[in-house]
């Protein structure tokens, strides 16, 4: 039976420690996975937007579908203010989708496996491919970014005065709750993303342990692909909703 300790080990975060010019920089697993996701996204963006033509062909169609989807999503909730926000939400959506579903690639032997195959000892600590958003810190950072976006958007489109006035609307009695909203919203965003992804990851680990063949492939479609995509969409959608509420 898989012991609790083994499961905890899978849920914790190890990683490299780098010493540069006397500074001690710890680099966790989720950061390494995020670097991979970023590299993949950057390379794909460059490949998909090369040789843009007026009449789209081949890969340009795919890029246009994605951009169109993001534009329509932001237009739907932000009205005619959508333009400055669309790139941020597009990036957020792509990053979250890629990082949430990355665990379908965990067939790649990681850490010790690679080190044994290649004989390179520094690869031994290479992390197992797992979604970085199952790390509380990653989810929290994204949620804090979202709430700062809401704050700046409100101040930019309403002015400082209008923003302060919005705390007293519709009735001044709600002031404490309006202030609390700025702390509760990032917390609930964080917990929703991190909780869902961690739960899906844990369940998949248990399934891999219990029935290692056939069954995980079907359940992976739900837990990795569907759940990951849905949570990415919900995160972006709720942020859009908060921004829309702040600037209207």
């Amino acid at each position, binding site marked *: 039976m898989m012991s*609790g300790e083994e499961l*905890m080990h899978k849920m914790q975060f190890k990683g490299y420690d780098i010493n540069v010019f006397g500074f001690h920089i710890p680099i966790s697993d989720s950061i390494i996975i995020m670097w991979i996701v970023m590299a993949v996204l950057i390379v794909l963006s460059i490949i998909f937007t090369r040789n843009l033509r007026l009449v789209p062909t081949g890969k340009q169609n795919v890029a246009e579908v994605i951009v169109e989807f993001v534009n329509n999503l932001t237009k*739907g*909730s932000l009205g005619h203010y959508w333009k400055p926000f669309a790139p941020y939400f597009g990036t957020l959506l792509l990053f979250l989708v890629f990082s949430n579903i990355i665990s379908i690639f965990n067939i790649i032997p990681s850490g010790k496996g690679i080190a044994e195959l290649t004989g390179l000892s520094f690869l031994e600590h290479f992390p197992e491919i797992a979604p970085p958003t199952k790390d509380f810190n990653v989810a929290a950072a994204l949620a804090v970014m979202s709430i700062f976006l809401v704050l700046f958007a409100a101040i930019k489109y309403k002015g400082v005065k209008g923003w302060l006035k919005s705390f007293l609307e519709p009735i001044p009695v709600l002031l404490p709750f309006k202030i609390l909203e700025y702390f509760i919203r990032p917390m*609930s965003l964080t*917990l*929703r993303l991190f*909780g*869902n992804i*961690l*739960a899906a990851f844990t369940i998949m680990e248990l399934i891999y342990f219990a029935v290692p063949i056939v069954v995980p492939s079907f359940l992976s479609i739900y837990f990795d692909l569907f759940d990951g995509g849905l949570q990415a969409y*919900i995160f972006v*959608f*709720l942020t859009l*909703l908060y921004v829309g509420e702040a600037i209207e």
Partner: protein
Amino acid sequence: MEGTGVIAFAASLAVLTGLGAGIGIAYATSKATEAISRQPEAAGKITTLALTGLALTEATAIYGLLIAILLFTKI
């Protein structure tokens, strides 16, 4: 360790919050479907509201899971 069984039982009780969230999500989704089939032109607005409600309902289950994980680390 002492009291491991009690902690495990408490963790399993915390996960029972999923029950409420499940019922809530099922109810909200059925109502949203009903509303859309009655008034298909309002589908966009209903979907927005339904998704917000679902996300908020689901939060209770996530909090239960969080408590369970926190208890789990004590074992």
